[in-house]
């Protein structure tokens, strides 16, 4: 070839490029792309042969031809690569769709257990009171008559004793009938201010659909310089709203306990009938859930506090009852049968 002018080649390059642009629009598969590759930048193509013969061109046009040819080659290469990727990804997507699984099949089961509902509710209640600045105290379940009755203002001949059917270990040791003995034990060892709750098992000799010989109570005790009945109301209202919900009403009804005075039973409005009266609440619209009251000053004498210097309140509740109300459980014995079909429900 004897060329001294580059314009011929440049023109041819432009034609190639234009032809390619037309051809590339027609491709519909990786194979088509490959064919174009061979045609335009394959060993026998115009572009590659041009590049191969650049060395034999006259020196003054060599750089122009070399540069222009390379530019066109790169442009074509880029378009081809892009097309190739496109067709590959189409194929890949088709292949993936073939890896079909039945997503409706059940998952592999991770082992997961449950807390006993009594524990779960105790923890829930503990958290509420911890949030209000309480600590958790504990005491023995086998108790002396002194702590279970006498120091709680319930001497041997007190009529209130007949309300507790007590299990005895010996003449003056017994299974505690309530968590209240911990009030005395804690006050003996600590000085006010006292803000404690006491969860624990208690025992009474009763066994039917609404009584088990062992059940669970949470006791609360607050003793401080200026504690009054209004404070008791505030705290228990807050508690009831936390555990049963803000929409529930709370009422304090005078009652009698030997170790508090004044004493109250605390009712929460029945959620089944919204207070209008139904079978669950016995028609009253209210459900009893707590016993409470101001600490009887006599107790302070047993623990060497000056009743003129401190006031306090105490409260107690049965966890089973709270669970039964909260979850609609109708037989208290279910809690202790440990049927996994029961435990798994909560």
């Amino acid at each position, binding site marked *: 070839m004897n060329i001294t002018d580059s314009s011929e080649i440049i023109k041819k390059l432009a034609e190639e490029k234009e032809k390619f642009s037309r051809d590339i629009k027609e491709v519909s598969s990786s194979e088509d792309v490959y064919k174009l590759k061979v045609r335009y930048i394959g060993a026998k193509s115009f572009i590659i042969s041009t590049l191969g013969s650049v060395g034999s061109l006259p020196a003054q046009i060599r750089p122009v031809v070399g540069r222009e040819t390379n530019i066109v080659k790169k442009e074509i290469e880029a378009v081809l690569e892009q097309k190739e990727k496109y067709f590959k990804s189409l194929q890949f997507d088709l292949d993936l769709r073939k890896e079909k699984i039945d997503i409706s099949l059940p998952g592999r089961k991770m082992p997961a257990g449950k807390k006993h509902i009594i524990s779960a509710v105790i923890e829930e209640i503990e958290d509420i009171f911890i949030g209000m600045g309480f600590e958790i105290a504990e005491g023995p379940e086998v108790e002396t008559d002194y702590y279970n009755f006498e120091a709680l203002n319930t001497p041997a001949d007190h009529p209130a004793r007949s309300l507790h059917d007590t299990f005895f270990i010996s003449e003056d040791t017994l299974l505690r009938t309530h968590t209240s003995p911990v009030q005395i034990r804690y006050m003996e060892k600590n000085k006010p201010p006292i803000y404690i709750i006491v969860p624990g098992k208690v025992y009474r000799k009763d066994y039917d659909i609404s009584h088990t010989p*062992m059940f669970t109570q949470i006791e609360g005790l607050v003793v401080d310089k200026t504690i009054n009945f209004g404070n008791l109301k505030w705290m228990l209202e807050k508690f009831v709203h936390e555990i049963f919900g803000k929409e529930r009403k709370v009422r304090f009804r005078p009652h009698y306990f030997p170790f508090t005075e004044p004493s109250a039973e605390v009712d929460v409005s029945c959620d089944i009938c919204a207070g209008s009266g139904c079978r669950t609440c016995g028609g009253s619209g209210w459900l009893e859930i707590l016993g409470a009251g101001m600490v009887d000053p006599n107790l302070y004498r047993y623990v060497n506090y000056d009743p003129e210097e401190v006031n306090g309140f105490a409260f107690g509740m049965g966890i089973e009852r709270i669970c039964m109300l909260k979850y609609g459980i109708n037989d208290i014995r279910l809690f202790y049968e440990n049927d996994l079909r029961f435990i798994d429900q909560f």
Partner: protein
Amino acid sequence: MKVTLNWLKEFLDLGNRGINPAEIASMLTMSGTEVKKIEYTGEKFKNIVVGKIIDFKQHPNADKLSVCQVDSGTGLLNIVCGANNFSKNDKVALALEGAVTSQGLKIGKSKLRGEISEGMMCSEYELGFSDESEGIMILSSSCTVGQGFAESLGIDDVVFELEITPNRPDCLNVAGIAREISVLADIPLKERDYDAEERLNNDKDYEIEIKDYTLCPRYCAKIFKDIPKIESPEWLKNRLIMCDYRPIDLIVDITNYVMHEVGQPLHAFDADLLYSNKIIIRTAKSGEKIRSIDDSIRNLKEDMLVIADEKKPVAIAGVMGGKDTEINTSTKNVLLESANFYGPSIMRTSSALGLRSEASNRFEKKLDPGLTLIAIKRFEELLSEITGTKFAGTIYDNYKKTARTRTIGLRLDKVKSVLGTEIEAAQISRILSGLGIKTKIKSAEFAENIKSDIIAAEIPSFRFEDLEREIDLIEEIARIYGFEKFVSAPPAALLRGGKYSFFQKTLRQLRQLLCDSGFYEVINYSFTGAQWLQKVKTASEDQYSSAVKIINPINEEFEYLRTSPLPLMVKNAVNNINHDVRNIRIFEITKVYKRLEDKKLPEEKTVLGVLISGKSWLKSWNENEKAFDFFDLKGVLELLYSRFYGSTPAFEISGREFKFFHPAVSAEIIAGKTAAGIIGKIHPLIIEDLDILQDIFYMELDLEVFIKNSGRQLKFKPIPQFPAIVIDIAIVVDKDAKNSEIVNEIEKSGTSLLKEVKLFDIYVGRQVEEGKKSIAYSLTFRDDLRTLKDTEVDIIVKRIVQNLGRKFGAKLRQ
């Protein structure tokens, strides 16, 4: 206790004021006398009136029916009736249009075989008085035609069922409840005047001897002679029935009526059956017996108070009368007892005899001795009214008076400091005087070192037992004032931080960890029985033998306190398996109790029991099933120690046989040098005996020990920068060689460059010699400061193999 509205009204001076039963109930409830139920007894007899049969004739189209003309008080009605037990002028219960029978049948106008019927004449069955009846109910001729049926029978009333707290014996009667209503609703009380002083001890025909005035401060008696033999009137019977008493005969009915009305138990003796005219109140003599009214022989103890004639006991004081001197059909003359006994003594006697009565229930709460005369007079009044006979005469009264009034100083600032709300002195006075407490306001100068005004409150005899202190008065004020009026407010010093102790916090984490690992928490009773303990062979083990025994258990299944969670957890497993829940992962955190010879109270310890049985993995479309084995449980133990103690193993288990475990799969858990628990497989013979077909694995941890020593000191360790070299070796050793000892030896020989030893294979079979096993470990070596060279590691591995060879005769497996 039940009271009726009409009965209460006899004590309340209503004037022309109306009274709303629901309002009264709510007031009582909100002042401490809870109303459990209100029953409107007249309601079910609505539209039933007293009718009078004027005339009747045969139904023209039916043989068995009659057509009657009945006067309803407002006109004559045509009634078709199927009964034939009536005659002209009989008075009947006439159900008018709108009435509903007790079977729920609505009465309306109808046509029966062509004849119009404008209502129904009711039988006792239709009125709900009996389960079946023949014919219609014929009423007493004294009933007023047109009057409501319920009203004419005295049962148009409202019955309140009340819960009386044990501190309020003064409310265990109609008069006491009326007093409460009076102060709550501001209704004056009707005064009843029972002055009988002039008739006390006028003659000496009867003698009353009291041996111990502490046990019996007062004994009153009166003789009623020649009592006419008549039945109790309907109104009396009906009131008793509405208040849950069973009518018996006139005398007994009136004693019950008076007790219910004023609160004083009475007892009537057949005066002619007493040995002589002397009544002795004394304690029982050794070996004495009495046949009580319920016809059983009671063995009396020497601390029991009895009423006796000169020969023998005739009643158990305050508890129950004697059969021999009981009122009977031929009784003519009655000795009526109205006495005051010492409450605690009555309570002891009634609980020792297992005999509780309406009388003992009142006496044990301590009654006012002032009631005795009131009750006798009221009895006399009622008996006279009913029989139309006058019964005057002496009232015998033996009474050792003690002071029964006191004055309590009530500080107004104390009222506020307890209740949190200020109540004015005038209001306090009004509340207290409504309760029968006289008050006088004294200013602060009343006494030294008293800062506020004081109300001097004079306590009446009937509240002498329960109003002793200032706080007792504050309670009275509070309950009448109304708890709902006290303002809720946070405690002044509430800003405090609440917290869990370390033990409590760890226990919670432990519970959560076990649940998250697939375990369900169980909670069992603290009791168990000898029979079950023997079944699971824990009764005779040393550590289980010192169980605490309950003197009065529910039954023998609840006789001993638990010394271990094991027996009842095994029971849980068996019960669930029997319910076809066969794959079991459960744990329990509970106290166990151990008798201590030298201590009054037993040792109480918190322990953890963990039990697995059945399959750990169930067969599924993508999974093979796998049964639990010992190492599943040991994995739990390892999890607990690694979670709460850190990665270094803080425990070891050493083989020790327990009767309840498989002899070859039975071990003790040792932490440091302390026994921390046990782990093993329940003995196959126990499993066989329990009639189940799957193994049970059980582990127990002493949580006091476990938690006390737990708590990881966490400190950051740099993340390794240089690559590790991992070498697998397999050695052949004796079949009995222990993994833990081999690992120990590897670690000892491995230098500080050996970071981890992992057992990955054990092989016993044809490819190794008989009596040997191949055991393979993966050893990880790393230097934290540089990259290790293979040659260095090779030397260490060679040394390890050599040492294993020396110690265990181990050979590298080719």
